[in-house]
Every structure is written in structure tokens, then in C-alpha cells.
């Protein structure tokens, strides 16, 4: 049955007054939670701020959370309001619910706001994707922004506070990562140690199948492909802390066990550690190959003969 004019006016008045209440509750809650998200929770969001790339990712998460909170609370507040006001009370089970009318102005505001939000996220996401924040994408330094310091080869000795980046070769093998430091005699370790306030170039390769080097707290992730040198870069801040490195590409039965640890140390402590490790590794360092971009196992595979003078598969034998 059609509503009378009086009933229509009552509904409109109801919607107007409750609408402002909903808006007020939503606005206050959003303001409080957004403030807490940005200033209280935000600084503790993963992956942290131990590197410029990690800090950039934390910034992205903060932005997304701050934008998501208003949308989330609009749904929750309106949902809560509907539960309280529109529920069927005892004796009202057979009655129709309240009739709501469309409001073009509010619908228009909603459409425009949604469009602005989505387009804004698209622009922001695109910018954040191409602006690599000192982080190679895992397939070499960004082709858009030229990071001239991110060369894939060692550029002289590394010293604390110097401008020469620290080069670390990440070598993946079923099911372990090792780290070779060409500027420290080519020593190799099973844990990743880095200095504070330093530019770092990771040359990532694999000796067998496809792995993935994911140093979560550094905000660095790069595929480790056999016969390929993937370059990822970052810049550590003054913050020290622990690192966990995981393989992020299903690589076999013990993929889940392919992880190890490391630490960002004060630059002077790192230098001491690296020098000591270099001395401790002298026995094996002389057997390790000089720095090469890839280490390609021979096609002949099993049972030895991994590094012959030629490769029947046609790969260059960089050894």
C-alpha cells in the first residue's frame, strides 16, 4: 500500500536526523582510529624501517590502512545502526520493515567519493610501483629511475661510512641460502650480516632450481634463478635488528625449511665481524670461485663434473 504524504514526510525526517547521527559517529570513530593507525600502530607496522625499502613499504601500508578505515567504519556503523533500529521487535514479526527512499545527493557523494578513492589508489599504487625507494625490483635496478650506484659488480673496498656499496652475492641451493662477500676476500657465510647506514647490492642467483630470496625485514625480495643474476638493492638506516630470510618459491620437499637468519649491525661491528670471518674462512676461500654473476652447473648433472671447461647446454661457464 502506498504511503501517505504524511508518512513520507515522517520517513524523510527520520532519515535526516538519523543520518546526521550516523555521520557523526562514523566521523568521530574514523578520526580516532585513523589517528591511532598513523601515529601509534603505524610505526610498528611491518616490515619496519631497517632499510629505506622497508620504510617505504611501511609507509604504503599506513596509507592503505588510513584510507581503508573510513570505508570499513561506514559499513560497520551503518550496519550497527540498522541492527538496532530496523530489527523486528516482539509482536512485529509480520510487519513490513521501514521503507527507505533513495537520496540522489547521498548516492552522488558516495559514487564520487568511491571513484576518487579508487583512482587515487591506482595513481598512488602506480607511483609506488615504479619509484623503487632504493630497491631493485629483483630484476635489476629500476629501468625508470636510474640508480647508477647499483652496479652488479664490486666497486672497490667497502668501508664504514664510505660511498661504495656493499656487495653480497646470495647463492640459493636446495635447501639453503649462503652469502658471499666479494669485498671481503669472497668469504661465504650461512647467515646474512649487514652494516647500518650503507648501500647494499644483492646479486641473487641459484645453483639448481628456482628459489626466491625474501629478506622480509629489509623489504627486499628477488627471484633466484639458475644462470641468472638478479640485482636487488637497498639502503640500511641507522636501525639495527634481526633479519629472517626465507625462500618464497616452492622449490622441493624442504622448501619450508629453507630459511636462515641474520642481523643489521652497527657499521663498525659489521666490519669487525666481516674481517674476522674473512680470516676464519681463509681455508675455504681459496677454493671458492672468484666473483661471478652466475654459477651454472653443468648439463651433465649428477655424479660430479659440474664445472667442465664447456657446457653442452651452451651456457657460459662463469667459474
Amino acid at each position, binding site marked *: 500500500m502506498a504511503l501517505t504524504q504524511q508518512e513520507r514526510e515522517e520517513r524523510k525526517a527520520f532519515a535526516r536526523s538519523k543520518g546526521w547521527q550516523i555521520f557523526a559517529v562514523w566521523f568521530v570513530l574514523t578520526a580516532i582510529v585513523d589517528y591511532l593507525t598513523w601515529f601509534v600502530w603505524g610505526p610498528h607496522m611491518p616490515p619496519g624501517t631497517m632499510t629505506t625499502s622497508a620504510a617505504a613499504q611501511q609507509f604504503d601500508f599506513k596509507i592503505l590502512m588510513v584510507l581503508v578505515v573510513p570505508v570499513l567504519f561506514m559499513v560497520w556503523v551503518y550496519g550497527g545502526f540498522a541492527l538496532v533500529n530496523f530489527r523486528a521487535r516482539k509482536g512485529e514479526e509480520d510487519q513490513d520493515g521501514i521503507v527507505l527512499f533513495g537520496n540522489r545527493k547521498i548516492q552522488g557523494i558516495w559514487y564520487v567519493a568511491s571513484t576518487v578513492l579508487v583512482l587515487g589508489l591506482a595513481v598512488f599504487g602506480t607511483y609506488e610501483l615504479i619509484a623503487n625507494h632504493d630497491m631493485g625490483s629483483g630484476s635489476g635496478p629500476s629501468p625508470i629511475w636510474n640508480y647508477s650506484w647499483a652496479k652488479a659488480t664490486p666497486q672497490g673496498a667497502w668501508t664504514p661510512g664510505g660511498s661504495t656499496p656493499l656487495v653480497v652475492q646470495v647463492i640459493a641451493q636446495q635447501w639453503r641460502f649462503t652469502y658471499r662477500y666479494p669485498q671481503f676476500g669472497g668469504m661465504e657465510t650461512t647467515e646474512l650480516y649487514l652494516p647500518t647506514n650503507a648501500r647494499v647490492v644483492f646479486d641473487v642467483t641459484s645453483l*639448481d632450481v628456482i628459489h626466491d630470496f625474501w629478506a622480509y625485514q629489509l623489504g627486499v625480495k628477488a627471484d633466484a634463478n639458475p644462470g641468472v643474476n638478479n640485482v636487488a638493492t637497498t639502503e640500511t638506516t641507522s636501525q639495527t635488528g634481526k633479519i629472517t630470510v626465507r625462500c618464497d618459491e616452492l622449490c622441493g620437499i624442504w622448501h619450508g625449511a629453507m630459511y636462515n637468519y641474520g642481523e643489521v649491525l652497527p657499521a663498525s661491528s659489521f666490519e669487525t665481524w666481516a674481517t674476522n670471518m674473512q680470516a676464519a674462512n681463509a681455508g675455504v676461500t681459496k677454493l671458492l670461485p672468484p666473483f661471478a654473476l652466475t*654459477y651454472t652447473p653443468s648439463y651433465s648433472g*649428477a655424479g660430479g663434473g659440474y664445472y667442465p671447461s664447456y657446457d653442452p647446454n651452451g651456457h657460459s661457464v662463469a667459474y
Partner: protein
Amino acid sequence: MRLSKGARAGIVLVSAAIAIGLILFGIFGYLRTYPPTVAATPSPTQPNTVDLTLQVEGAVGTGPHPQWVGWYAKDAAGKWVRTTIYQVPEKTYVHVTVYEYDSGGPLRNPYWGKVLGTQGGVEYLNGKPVSVLDAASGNGVAHTIDAPSLGLNIPVWGVNGNAKNFCQQGPCNPSEAHNVITFTFYSGNTTHTYRWQCFIPCGVGYLEGNGGPMAETGYMAGFFKVVA
């Protein structure tokens, strides 16, 4: 007596359920099959030490994959058991003797020629202490015992594949060409199951040596069970 429709349907459903159950039990039973665990035996001469005796050959000679490369362990009765699961007590020194009957070659990463995690930082190759094996020379390295969480890496020197008395299939015996590698490591202060693996992709016939025995417990992958 003629059974009702419902009774006949019931019999069919119950029979089908039992058959499916038996099939699933068989499948999961097969998938959950593990090789036996061999416990290290207390050393007759050294206090707080257990002995573990192993051998590795190019073809184990038994089981579902007799041509696969794999390991045996000597049980308390002195019998060779094909397994890669070893039980050792916590807070104990584990003295391991490896009889190596397989040929070797260069390591894919020579870093794994370094002895790690043993008492004194060495292993004894035919009685001589060594801390690094140069896999690019001589017979090369045949296999490694690497337990990442124990910090253990033991390169195992290969024998000459052209030796006249080269062992063709296991379990091999000391009259055949072999090397003896011994080392001692500490089992740690906590009970835990540590995985170990060989770092030489030695799965002949598989892509670049990976897969096959490399990916199967009982051949080139196993566990150290550290128990109370």
C-alpha cells in the same frame, strides 16, 4: 528371505564405505611410510658419547629403488639397516663413522667442502684430520651430511669410480674400495628432530641431479632425532 530395498541399499552403502576406507588407509599408510629409526649405541670407551656407524653407496640394492644412491646405518645388533633416520641422546657427543663406497666429483658450491660443526672443526679422513676438502681435485666429494639447524656440514670424500673392487650395490663390505670418515658432534641441550640432507645433487637420471633420491627420506634426506 527377501531383503527390503532399504536393507539392500544399506548393505551396499556400508560395503562401499568400508572399501573406500580400506583404500584410503592403504594410500595414507603408504604415504606415511618412513624408514626405520636406528639408535646410536653408547660408546664402550668414551664417557658421555654414543657411536653411530653409517655407510653410503651409489646403489642401495634393496627396497623400492634398488638403483638409487643411499645410506645404511648399523643397528645395535650389528646389522646394516637402510635408513637415514638416526636417534641420539641430548647433551651427548655423537661419534660418527662413515664408510664411503661411492665415487665423487666437484662440488656445485665448493663452500660445502668445509667441515662445520664438529669437535675441533675437523673430520678424520682415513685417520687424518681435515678441515676442508678440495672437491675439484682427486676423487672429489661424493656426498655431504648437512644438518642446518645443528650447524653441521660433513663432506664425504669419494672413492675412485674405476677401482677394481668398486662396490656395485649395498650393503657394501670393507673388502671393497672405500674411505672411512669419522667425526664427533654435540647433540645439543634440547630434544628436537633435526633434518639433514646431502648437498650434492646426486640423483642420477633426474634433472640436474635433483629429485629422486635427493627428495626421499631413506636415501639422501633424513633426520637426527635428539631425544631425552
